[in-house]
């Protein structure tokens, strides 16, 4: 039964290496876990704090989450995502909503839209996109500060028809060579504002109200 012994030996050696590599991975995992959790949380928190700077609130936004169901029509999100509440004392001063523009030039554009209690935009950030580098990717704050133009806007400023690129009669600039991407972001932001208005009661509900 020479072949049986040979299989046994090969199997043992393979198992041995599987065990050794598993230990190496497990050990690194345990060693880096705290640091990785910290980094993931910090990256998330940093983005939220850009929309609502520290002086505007006194809660940990990153911990104050609520679920937004998948396929929520106005937000365009495909899967369940998180929204965040921004509080000062007992008042919810704003919310950060997840929004997805499905009509980007190259797939979905995922964004976070910060809405204040009075319905104005605190800030919009694109968190994931695959738009053309050099053209459509100017919606990313790292490439261009175009997205800051949404700050302080609301459904009344501009009026509904103004929520479009300048080329199509709106008040927002398009980029040289790219209309589809900015329009997608503009419309997604507008819809998020509409969602916030329609759901204001539940979104901005404060402890006192619910009690």
């Amino acid at each position, binding site marked *: 039964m020479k072949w049986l012994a040979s299989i046994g030996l*090969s199997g043992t050696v*393979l198992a041995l290496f599987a065990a050794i590599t598993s230990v190496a991975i497990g050990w690194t995992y345990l060693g*880096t876990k705290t640091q*990785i959790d910290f980094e993931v949380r910090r990256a998330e928190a940093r983005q939220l704090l850009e929309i609502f700077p520290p002086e505007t609130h006194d809660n940990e936004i990153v911990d104050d989450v609520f679920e937004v169901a998948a396929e929520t029509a106005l937000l365009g999100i495909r899967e369940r995502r998180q929204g965040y509440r921004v509080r000062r004392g007992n008042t919810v001063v704003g919310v950060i909503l997840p929004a997805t523009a499905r009509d980007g030039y190259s797939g979905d554009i995922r964004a976070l839209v910060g809405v204040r209690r009075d319905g104005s935009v605190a800030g919009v950030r694109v968190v994931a996109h695959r738009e053309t580098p*050099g053209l459509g990717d100017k919606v990313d704050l790292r490439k261009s500060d175009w997205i800051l133009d949404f700050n302080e806007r609301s459904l009344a400023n501009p009026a509904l028809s103004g929520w479009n690129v300048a080329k199509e009669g709106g008040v927002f600039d398009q980029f040289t060579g790219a209309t589809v991407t900015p329009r997608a972001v503009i419309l997604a932001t507008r819809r998020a504002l509409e969602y916030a208005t329609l759901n204001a009661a539940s979104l901005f509900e404060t402890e006192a109200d619910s009690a």
Partner: protein
Amino acid sequence: MSSTSYRQLTLNGLWKNNPALVQLLGLCPLLAVTASTVNALGLAAATLFVLVVSNTTVSLIRSVVSDTIRLPVFVMIIAAAVTVTELLMQAYSYELYQILGIFLPLITTNCIILGRADAFARKNALPAALYDGFIMGVGFGAVLVLLGAIRELLGTGALFADMQLLFGAGAESWRWQVFNVDYPFLVAILPPGAFLVTGFLIALKNQIDSSIEQRAKAQAEAPVAGSKRVRVTGTVS
């Protein structure tokens, strides 16, 4: 190993048998992440690390593992090395980890790594295998960074942007706007640009090689002082 063979290994890894320009291995990450210098540098460092770890380990275990099961064992070692690298990068360079995305785990299937393990490390002693992994990684990384720099320069007119992702705060100022562009030369940043620039680099290398060869030939055929007659058949430059 003697010093001449180390010189041979160096020459092979960096030039004669360069993984990216001659062996043409690992092209998928090479083409995909080299839109900027910082991405290229990040992937180059990760690949280099994995190459050294896998070559070292494979060389150490070469007498234990029989030929029949060497491939599963090598793949296991490489996959473990990549996982460890991924975890470390996630912990200590989170932004870059996000940028490299899928290309970090894809190092597992980068043919350079398994290629060097099977073609070199399993037949050579530890120091040589380690050095081979290192120098092949450097050769691959050098092309990666060169490609990234050329594409970034052509596409954005700048060099070394976003270096803080790799080197921490303070590296923001490394960005060097070489010339100003109103319209970015998009092709350079998009995937076709990767193919074009790689093609030009390979052509350049071949051109240099053939001119070196010709010069050597010309030198060998040059009349030696004192000799009576020399027949010249090759091209003389």
